[in-house]
C-alpha cells in the first residue's frame, strides 16, 4: 500500500495507521466512542494481508493482558478503549510499565465518572499522567487534536514505546475519535521479521535457544533492594524521556498578552477562540501540549513573565491546570475553564470565561 489520502473518522485512522505501521496484534473490547477502531480492523481483515492478529477479547482485562503477553515477545501490539474500559486495564498497564515493555494503548475519552456518558471528555488526564495504576510509573502520553494526528501518533506512539521500552498512550476524546477529516496515510511497511525482533529486542521471551540464559518478563521482585534498583532505573529512563521527548505547538503566542493552554480537541476549539479574539484586536495566543507526559513545563514557564494570565481550557473540572500552575510557580495568574460530563464548550464560551476570570 502506498501513501493515500482518505476521509476518515479519527478512530478509523488509528486502525488504518496500525495496519500500515506493521502492527502485529490488536486486542480489544468494544465501547463507545472508540468501537470503530476494532470495527475497521475487522473490516480490513489485515490477517489476510500483513498477518496482523485482530482479536475481540472477552473483556478489557483480558485484552490488556494479551497485550502484556504479546509485548513480552517483542511484537508490536496494541489495545484501545474508552474511559471506563481503561480503568479496567490499569492493573495490566502498571504490570506492563513495571516489566518495561513497549506497547500502544488508545483511550478515546468519554464523560465520567463511572459509566458516565458516551460524549467527549478529557477527565482522564489525571488517570493517564499521574499514575492511574499503582506504583511509580509513567506513560508516554500523546494528545492528538486532528484525525491526521490520530494516524501520525499511532506510528509515533509505537516508535517511542520501542525507543524507551515503555508503554505509550494516545489520549484522545470522543470529538477527535468521531469526527471525519482528510488524512494522509503513510505507505505501508512490512511487519518486523523474527530476526529483526531478536536483534532489536534481545530481552524478548521468544522461545529459548540453546546456550543462552532464559529471558524472564516480570514486574515481580521480592527483594526490596533490587526493586529499588529497578525503580531507580525506571526513574532515570523517565528523566531521559522528559529531556528528549517534550512536544508542543504554539499558535499566535509571540506577542500574546494572554495565553490559552489546551490539549486535544479543546485546542482546536481554542484556536477558533484565538482567531475570533485576534479579529477583535485582543492579543491572545494558544499553547498546545502534544505530549501530556512529558509535559511542556519549560515552554509554559517561559511565558510566565511575558503574559498577564493563562487560562487552562479542558473538558474536565480542572486537571492539567495543576501542571500549568506548577510550571509557572506562581509568577502569573492561571485559571481553569471547563465543561463537564460530555458537554463541549464553544469558542465564544471560552472567550467569555477568559474575560470573566482573567481580563475583567
Amino acid at each position: 500500500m502506498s501513501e493515500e489520502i482518505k476521509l476518515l473518522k479519527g478512530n478509523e485512522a488509528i486502525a488504518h495507521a496500525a495496519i500500515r505501521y506493521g502492527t502485529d496484534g490488536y486486542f480489544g473490547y468494544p465501547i463507545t466512542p472508540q468501537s470503530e477502531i476494532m470495527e475497521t480492523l475487522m473490516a480490513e481483515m489485515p490477517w489476510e494481508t500483513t498477518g496482523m492478529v485482530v482479536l475481540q477479547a472477552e473483556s478489557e482485562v483480558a485484552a490488556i493482558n494479551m497485550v502484556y503477553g504479546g509485548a513480552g515477545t517483542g511484537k508490536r501490539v496494541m489495545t484501545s478503549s474508552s474511559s471506563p474500559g481503561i480503568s479496567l486495564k490499569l492493573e495490566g498497564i502498571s504490570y506492563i510499565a513495571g516489566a518495561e515493555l513497549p506497547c500502544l494503548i488508545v483511550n478515546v475519552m468519554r464523560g465520567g465518572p463511572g459509566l458516565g456518558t458516551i460524549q467527549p471528555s478529557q477527565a482522564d488526564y489525571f488517570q493517564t499522567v499521574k499514575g492511574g495504576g499503582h506504583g511509580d510509573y509513567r506513560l508516554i502520553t500523546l494528545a492528538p487534536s486532528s484525525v491526521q494526528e490520530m494516524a501520525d501518533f499511532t506510528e509515533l506512539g509505537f516508535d517511542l514505546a520501542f525507543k524507551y521500552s515503555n508503554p505509550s498512550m494516545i489520549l484522545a476524546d470522543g470529538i477527535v475519535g468521531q469526527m471525519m477529516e482528510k488524512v494522509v496515510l503513510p505507505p505501508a511497511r512490512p511487519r518486523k521479521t523474527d530476526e529483526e525482533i531478536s536483534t532489536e529486542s534481545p530481552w524478548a521471551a521468544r522461545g529459548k535457544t540453546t546456550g543462552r540464559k532464559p529471558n524472564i518478563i516480570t514486574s515481580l521482585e521480592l527483594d526490596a533492594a533490587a526493586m529499588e534498583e529497578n525503580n531507580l532505573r525506571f526513574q532515570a529512563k523517565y528523566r531521559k524521556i522528559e529531556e528528549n521527548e517534550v512536544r508542543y505547538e504554539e499558535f499566535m503566542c509571540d506577542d500574546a498578552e494572554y495565553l490559552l493552554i489546551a490539549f486535544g480537541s479543546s485546542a482546536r476549539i481554542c484556536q477558533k477562540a484565538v482567531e475570533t479574539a485576534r479579529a477583535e484586536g485582543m492579543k491572545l495566543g494558544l499553547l498546545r501540549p502534544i505530549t501530556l507526559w512529558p509535559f511542556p513545563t519549560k515552554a509554559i514557564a517561559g511565558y510566565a513573565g511575558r503574559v498577564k494570565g493563562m487560562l487552562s481550557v479542558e473538558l474536565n473540572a480542572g486537571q492539567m491546570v495543576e501542571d500549568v500552575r506548577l510550571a509557572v510557580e506562581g509568577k502569573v495568574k492561571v485559571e481553569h475553564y471547563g465543561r463537564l460530563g460530555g458537554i463541549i464548550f464553544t469558542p465564544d464560551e471560552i472567550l467569555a470565561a477568559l474575560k470573566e476570570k482573567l481580563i475583567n
Partner: protein
Amino acid sequence: MKQEIIIAGFGGQGVLSMGKILAYSGLMEGKEVTWMPSYGPEQRGGTANVTVILSDQPISSPILNEYDIAIVLNQPSMDKFESKVKPGGILIYDGYGIHNPVKRNDINVYRVDAMDAATEMKNEKAFNMIILGGLLKVVPMVQLENVLLGLKKSLPERHHKLIPMNEAAIRKGMEIIRKV
C-alpha cells in the same frame, strides 16, 4: 472561502450521510473538510445533527457558535438552530416537518419540499439527496460531478447502481427549492 454548515433532523432521515457526501465532495475538490456528528444515543426517530465545514484553509474548531448555513429538517432542529445562523446567512428547511414559521428577518430562508418530492418519486430514500440538491442550487460550493464522485467513494460498490437515482434526486432538489 469557508462554509460552516449544520444539518439537523430526525435520525433515519439521512442527515449524517448527507453530511458525509458533502464532505467527500469537498475532499474531491481538494478542500479541507471536517465532519462532526452528534453521536448521542440517537436512533430512528430521535434527533441527529452533523456539522460540516468546507474550507480552502486548515480548519480550526469542529465545534461552532454559529453557522453560515443551517439545514433543518424537523421542528426541534428549527427551534435549536434558527438563532444560530449568522446574520445574512442561509436557512433551508423542508416544509413537511416544520409547523412554526421562521421568525428571523436578517437571514435568507429557503424551502425545499423534499418529503413531498421523494414521495412523488416513489423513493423516500431520495429525501436527503433532494435536500442536498437544494443546498447546491443556493450555494454551489461543490460541483455536481464531484458530488457524484463523492457518492461513488462513500457508497459500497454494490450500491453504485443507485448513483443515477441519487443524481436525479439532486437535480430535483435544485429544481424545487424556492426562497421564502
